[in-house]
């Protein structure tokens, strides 16, 4: 479904990604793991078009997307939930959601999508007319995910959805991701919370210094002593 080959990216003159390659099959949940500064966010942003790749090929559903502007990638159904959520605090919850269905593909489905995200996240229906910034951290995270769902994703990329959330809220978020995946949406999950990410992902890639250093089925990685030592502190 998504194929990334030899992705390279620069910030100014500094190379941050060195030949990153990964793939996602339809229906999978894939985790992209690694410490701070490993290049996970840059990889996601290169895929979604917000950062322009310096080299490499990215194919989504068979079509090359690596030189397209972000709005066209959204039209194809590749949706990103960015790091730090980037919701519109001064707009209402409902406005945030409705704007999620901005693309030509998602707009006709807007009412249906709204009903669906309300069933997944009832709190967003209750607070529809409130300003988004008045929501709690966990609720804002739900809003950011819901907004991504309004864009009718085929593949949803989430950048650190558990950041800054209390443990039971993290549980809820990950429950929701499993439900979304069951509805047929493939997921690419960037996470520092390795424990949880490996629990819901089918496969994972581990990044370090702009490169992929390990990949494999999540069961295998969880069992590996190397990973446990490096990331789970065991």
């Amino acid at each position: 479904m998504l194929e990334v080959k030899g992705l390279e990216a620069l910030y100014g003159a500094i190379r941050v990604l060195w030949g990153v390659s990964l793939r996602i099959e339809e229906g999978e949940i894939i985790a992209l793991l690694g410490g701070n500064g490993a290049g996970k966010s840059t990889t996601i942003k290169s895929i979604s078009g917000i950062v322009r790749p310096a080299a490499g090929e990215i194919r989504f559903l068979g079509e090359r997307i690596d030189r397209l502007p972000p709005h066209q990638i959204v039209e194809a159904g590749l949706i990103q939930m960015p790091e730090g959520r980037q919701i519109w605090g001064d707009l209402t919850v409902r406005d945030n959601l409705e704007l999620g269905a901005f693309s030509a593909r998602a707009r006709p489905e807007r009412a249906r999508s709204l009903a669906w995200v309300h069933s997944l996240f009832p709190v967003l229906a209750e607070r529809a007319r409130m300003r988004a910034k008045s929501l709690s951290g966990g609720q804002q995270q739900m809003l950011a995910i819901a907004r991504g769902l309004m864009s009718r994703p085929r593949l949803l990329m989430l950048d650190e959805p558990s950041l800054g959330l209390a443990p039971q809220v993290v549980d809820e978020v990950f429950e929701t991701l499993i439900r979304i995946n069951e509805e047929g949406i493939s997921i690419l999950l960037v996470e520092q919370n390795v424990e949880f990410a490996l629990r819901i992902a089918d496969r994972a890639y581990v990044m370090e210094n702009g490169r992929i250093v390990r990949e494999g089925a999540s069961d295998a990685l969880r069992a590996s002593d190397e990973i446990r030592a490096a990331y789970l502190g065991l």
Partner: protein
Amino acid sequence: MSALLQILIGAGLQGALYALGAIGLSLSFGVLRIMNLSHGDFLMLGGLVGYLAFVHLGLNPFVAAALVGGCLFLAGIAYHELLLTRLAGRSPRGVLIASVMVTLGSALAIEDLTAFFWGGSSIGIPYRLRSLVWGDAVFPLLRVLLLVATLVLTTGLYFFLGKSFLGRAVVASTLNREGALVVGINIRRIALFTFGFGIALTGATGVFYATLFSIEPYMGLGLTLKYLAVIVVGGIGSLPGALVGGLVIATAESVTAYYLGPHWSPMVAFAILVAALLVRPQGLLGRA
């Protein structure tokens, strides 16, 4: 008493005109991070084209304003494509500094070229309507109509930005650019549309200016600085803020002119700007 009333009403019209002219500046900074110092020169050009339309085509200022609006919308987009598009890749701070330099240069060029081809004299559209008399207050019908037109435009814009899908996309792009990108908003097209629209609005205001006051080639930069004061006082990016800022400055100018003398009023806008920056830099209605 009625003198003060007339001053306030006059200030109301002046404030609304300031707001109309300043909105484009606020929007283009909000959406594109471009500080367009040539903004006031488009008001001057709009007034000039309006004058020519009046003299050669016999169009009244209201029709001419619509025509000028249309022309300057396209001119604004062309201007952006020619000079400002290549700034897009830079950091916000880089865009700001570069846009200041580019637009300052083009402001000077526009003013000098206009003076060269037109002559340095000021012109006005000699369009007069009758006056309304109410008690011992006199209201020129023209001013009243222009005030109504200005309020209609500002209200229309307010509802467009607040209620329509496209309008909310423009506002969202101002508030959080990355958020706008991830939902598939074509920021480039929105930015272009917003910029062109801001220029169109200012051009139409220029026609009103030419009718009420006069237009001369070198008025642009001074006007742009005054608009800067308006949007800083009201809050950058806020549409009601532009209205409030315009009214505050216009009222202060009128009251100062009446009590201290007309030669004091040009300074008022800048005194208020300095005070605003010291006391409340985000403006009365702006976000912190």
